[in-house]
């Protein structure tokens, strides 16, 4: 036979990463019929959903955060950047309820609080991924993502253990939702693979999948692209943009890769030594002299 088929399985991963920032900023499409396909419509940045007021956090004598204030609007991608040790993860941990700041308050959807457990935060619709993956290595991808449905499961432990009545119906519903996420993140081939056997980039994806399983309103991503190669980064960028657009999820992102941050963020907060030194759209932040000096150093 003289014709040879093209290599199987070489289907290219779509490139929608840092290379194509413009498309998000394109004008909203005209035809509305186009967008009735799935639940959520076009992304429109809305009102403030999360407001951080004068937060200070100390560990003994070490000041991790000093008087930080910024807000996050609904449906936007908000990045927190800064050099190592600037307090980015501490900030995320405050929002997440892992740390309790000594001063200041956080307002979520108009509800103000100064102390909250991480479970309460999760119930309010804030999910996160971790810098150092916190997955169950011995469990399959499906089971790991199913754990993200934990808060949504209503039937009690006994019924679940016996898989009877409502528990089984519920399991099917949740499984369907999880399958939707698996499809979305394109990890169908690894459904039943133990997470510990997957390469790092895929583990990161599973971590994101678990956070998505909570159907969060706000998603906190702690360095989702750390340790990834360019291709994996591009994939992850696309997933973040798609989550933002398809589900309308508000995203708070900590990231070191400036190219990525500048390309996909709507607004950026810059921290240095626990203080806020810049806040605004990527272009403004890029030209801010304080930010430049924090990153590159200045001669005095």
């Amino acid at each position, binding site marked *: 036979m003289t014709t*040879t088929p093209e290599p199987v399985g070489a289907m290219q991963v779509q490139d929608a990463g840092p290379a194509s920032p413009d498309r998000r900023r394109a004008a909203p499409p005209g035809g509305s019929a186009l967008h009735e396909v799935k639940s959520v419509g076009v992304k429109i940045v809305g009102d403030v959903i999360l407001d951080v007021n004068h937060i200070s956090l100390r560990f003994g004598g070490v000041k991790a955060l000093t008087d930080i204030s910024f807000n996050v609007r609904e449906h936007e991608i908000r990045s927190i950047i800064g050099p190592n040790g600037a307090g980015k993860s501490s900030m995320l941990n405050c929002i997440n309820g892992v740390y309790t700041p000594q001063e200041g308050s956080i307002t979520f959807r108009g509800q103000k609080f100064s102390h909250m457990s991480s479970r309460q935060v999760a119930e309010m619709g804030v999910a996160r991924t971790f810098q150092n993956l916190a997955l169950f290595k011995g469990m399959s991808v499906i089971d790991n993502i199913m754990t993200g449905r934990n808060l949504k499961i209503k039937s009690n432990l006994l019924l679940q253990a016996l898989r009877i009545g409502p528990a089984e119906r519920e399991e099917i519903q949740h499984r369907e939702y999880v399958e939707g996420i698996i499809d979305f993140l394109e990890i169908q081939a690894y459904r039943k693979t133990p997470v510990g056997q997957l390469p790092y980039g895929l583990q990161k994806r599973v971590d994101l999948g678990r956070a998505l399983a909570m159907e969060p309103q706000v998603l906190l991503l702690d360095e989702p692209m750390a340790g990834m190669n360019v291709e994996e980064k591009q994939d992850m960028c696309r997933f973040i943009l798609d989550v933002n657009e398809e589900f309308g999820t508000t995203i708070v992102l900590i990231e070191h890769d400036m190219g990525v941050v500048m390309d996909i963020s709507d607004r950026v907060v810059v921290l240095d030594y626990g203080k806020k030194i810049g806040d605004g759209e990527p272009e403004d932040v890029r030209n801010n002299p304080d930010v430049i000096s924090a990153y590159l150093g200045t001669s005095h």
Partner: protein
Amino acid sequence: MQTTFPQLLLKHAAERPAAPAMREKEYGIWQAHSWSDLARLVEQLAAGLQQAGLRRGEHMVVIGANRPRLYATVLAAQSLGAVPVPLYQDAVGAECVFPLNNAEIRFVMVEDQEQVDKLVEIRDRCTQISNIYYDDPRGLRKYSEPGLESLDALIESGKAFVARHPQWFAAEVAKVQPGDVAAMFFTSGTTGNPKGVVHTHSTLIDRATAGAEFDRLTHAEEVLAYLPLAWIGQNIFSYAQWLACGYVVNCPESAATVTIDLKEVGPTYYFAPPRVFEGLLTSVMIRMEDASALKRKMFEACMNIARRVGPARMNGEEVGVLDRIKYALGNVLVYGPLRNNLGFSRVRVAYTAGEAIGPDLFSFYRSIGINLKQLYGSTETAVFVCLQPDNQARADTVGVPIRGVEIKVADNGEIMVKSAGLLKEYYKNPAATAEVLTADGWYHTSDAGFLDAHGHLKIIDRVKDVGRIKGGPNDGAMFAPKYVENKLKFFPFIKEVVALGDGRDHACVMINIDFDAVGNWAERRNLPYAGYTDLAQKPEVYQLMKECVEKVNADLASDTLLAGSQVSRFLVLHKELDADDGELTRTNKVRRGFIADKYGVLVEALYAGKTEQYIETVVKFEDGRTGSVSATLKINDCKTFAPVKAAA
């Protein structure tokens, strides 16, 4: 059979409305689409496309993986008398420009954002594109590209039209004639622009039916559609024959899940190019090496029986009682579970084609009870020219001409084919058409070959590569470089071969060792080596190569036609042939002429009878820098055999 694809669809929908036509895995579960569902979808799509302005006879491009809605779009276009043109989904944007412009494409149907991005990128070069439809809306919400619309919207508009005109579709389908153009396939030309191969409903359906009759395919077959739709083989196996027989086509979830889906579906009719079978075998062997000693022993013992008994059993030959019992035991312990693991438990007919398949590889599958066969055909012949009957499958032939095919061998050794499945023409290219299609209906395959004593077709090489030995004892004998190269490459130790001999008095080869395989072999024999060049020049390695070459010579000697192509001298190259150095094409085919030129001193030394030769070669590293490799290469002689005269 005088019919068209849309008519076949309506026939199945009327006869077996609830039977599954396609299955697609969604949310981890196989979902079936019945023939009546499919017919309804096609009707709506056709109505939508007609409303949008797709005209009779116009071409429409389809790009994407095997998805039911893409198949439905192809059917919808054909129902309107339009011509679907599938393109490779992994081609880059620039490669799509020529086909899009050549066929004056206004309508494009794509799978997802990846393909839309591609079209957006080249749209300024293909300005006539007016409508782009996509199946998967993901990531496309913010696109404001003019003419971009979802398939759902198209279906909605079609639905409204169908509700007002319930009789419209049947009338439209009736207008399509069997002689109308049904599809066009672009062949990936190695030189110049690709050519659009035009096929009608009758050419495709004729070949699909002939193939189906040959293998007695029924509507009960299960097929996994995993190769690109733009390739005619895929089109025949999961489109033309699907509609001709009415079996079930299963769409894998994604390219990454094909092996999992294969196992779940358990196809009864399967096609794969040799390298897929090779990959599967390698994965089995690697897993066996990691298995426990007991399992390994059992596997080896059973495979020994299989090698001895299996092929004979498959060929319907008489097998002794004891062997039958042993084989049955092996079937329970090893072959059965192995077939199941590979997803071949239910395979009734499996085909491979596209390139030469190694005899060991071929007989491995047959020995474990898989009915693997070869076929011969091309885009221009709508695939089916020759097929191997169930019990006459051999690694070195491609089968007998099937119903409706006439074959003759031209004076220059070229195979000529006549059948009802030949291409109508190359699109807008009468010169190229005239070159391959004679006035009295013969098609030039440009393959050299012959029909053997049993009436099986044997392909030797491309006509333009076949040469003649000049002078010496074999003066005037046919020399087929690729045939010799392939035979040598079937040895796992040999990675590439360049055969020389056209216009010379004997044939010589330059060999590239397979570094992994030979390295592994050397380690097991405690043979130290410093690197590739060092290993390649080890006397032990030369001895190993010599054994391989002599085995090939012995094999060639039994072939009356090619006995003169036996290799009398060889050398092992000091560096790997590389596409970066221009020695291989991007698809890893050796560029014989270029190599003969570049390694001229070696060629001279081979024919001058020297025993070694110094050479210095410039190499290009991946980062673009260049360096040089030098070595003194040994040249060895090897035994040739007197031709074995055929018995009759």
